[in-house]
């Protein structure tokens, strides 16, 4: 349901303003004039706008108070400020449009997510994610460790060795590690270190993902802010 005011006065400021500039179509102008003939408030609004526009057009525009012609030394100073050679190349390289920066950041974000997912699903690689072992897997890994004569117990669930064994547990021969107790310590230590390295790599990767996402969001926010503040006026 339309606002009663809008129903009584269907022409807004934009239509009245466009009418003053003769930017309405003949049909719209005719409708507006028909309405104005019987609507005193709209006539007053239009006359108010007309007075504003005429006042603005009548504002004196005097000459510039002095000459702004550029002197050679000003141009030279400006040229010195403008880097040449490699510095200019770097400046140009960074002179991307905000939309380009946003697109590049989004692309980088998706590439990094893709890399992350690929390593997650790949398995076997030194940086692959180790799934949490099930109770059965943990039990079997624990058996393997307890059979080993190592002086210090190694926690079974977080290690890749235990996990590799647990993956092996899906095969008909479940306890390869347990069958050779002397090999158990040797298979536990190094993969554990590799996993720590993999975790660190993953956190770095995710850090870059977050940074790319943050750059994308910040650039979009800056674009929106710029548009709202009238900074659509492009810079040269």
């Amino acid at each position, binding site marked *: 349901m339309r606002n009663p005011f809008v129903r009584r006065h269907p022409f807004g400021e934009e239509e009245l303003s466009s009418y003053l500039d003769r930017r309405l179509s003949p049909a719209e102008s005719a409708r507006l004039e028909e309405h104005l003939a019987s609507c005193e408030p709209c006539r007053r609004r239009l*006359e108010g706008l007309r007075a504003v526009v005429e006042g603005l057009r009548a504002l004196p525009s005097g000459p*510039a108070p002095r000459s702004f012609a550029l002197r050679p030394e000003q141009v030279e100073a400006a040229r010195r400020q*403008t880097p040449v050679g490699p510095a200019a190349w770097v400046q140009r390289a960074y002179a991307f449009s905000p939309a380009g920066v946003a697109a590049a950041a989004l692309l980088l974000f998706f590439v990094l997510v893709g890399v992350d997912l690929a390593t997650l699903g790949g398995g076997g690689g030194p940086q692959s994610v180790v799934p949490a072992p099930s109770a059965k897997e943990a039990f079997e890994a624990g058996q393997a460790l307890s059979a080993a004569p190592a002086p210090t117990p190694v926690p079974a669930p977080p290690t890749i060795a235990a996990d590799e064994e647990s993956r092996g547990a899906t095969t008909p021969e479940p306890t390869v590690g347990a069958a050779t107790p002397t090999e158990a310590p040797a298979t536990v230590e190094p993969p554990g270190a590799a996993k720590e390295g993999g975790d660190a790599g993953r956190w770095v990767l995710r850090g870059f993902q977050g940074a790319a996402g943050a750059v994308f969001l910040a650039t979009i926010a800056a674009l929106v802010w710029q548009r709202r503040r*009238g900074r659509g006026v492009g810079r040269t």
Partner: protein
Amino acid sequence: MQATAPEDSRLVALSQEGDLAAFNALVERYQGQVYNLCWRMLGLREAAEDATQEAFLAAYRNIRRFRGPGFRAWLLRIAANAATDELRRRHRRPQVSLEAPVSDSETALDLPDPSAGPEEWALRREQARCLQAALLTLPLDQRLSVILSDVQGLSYEEVGQAMGSSLGTVKSRLSRGRARLRRYLLEKGELSLPGQRPTQ
């Protein structure tokens, strides 16, 4: 959209080859409009002069990138940027308030045609002072579109080119700016409608 005038095209081409004299011929031709835009945007003579000078320097530095179609709109776009930067710079270091009413010394450049009678001259001067004060209350985008369209006389298309905006955005900003000015002047009792003198 207004294309670059033939004489401008020649001067622009020479300027793009580094001819400073040709560029200064363009400066002489447009410095009144550029200064006027900056002055209306900022309301202060010194700030407007700084912005005007900066605009021409920026235009000279970037003239090789100009590809048309309208040199005036391109130049006014640079001037609008320079004025906006100057405004922000002064807001960061407010030595003189940009929101303060325009003083007599600042309106000295804004005097109406002296050929009018003394009473008419005083009235027009007061109206000009009020309108300038009203302009400074507008948001920057509305202020710029009103100045470019109603004070400088650019077409909607040229305003769009100078602001990097679509025609719809230009219409919308212009109508909102005009409506806001109307309300401001009505509140101040300064709006003179036909058959009526502004109340003082």
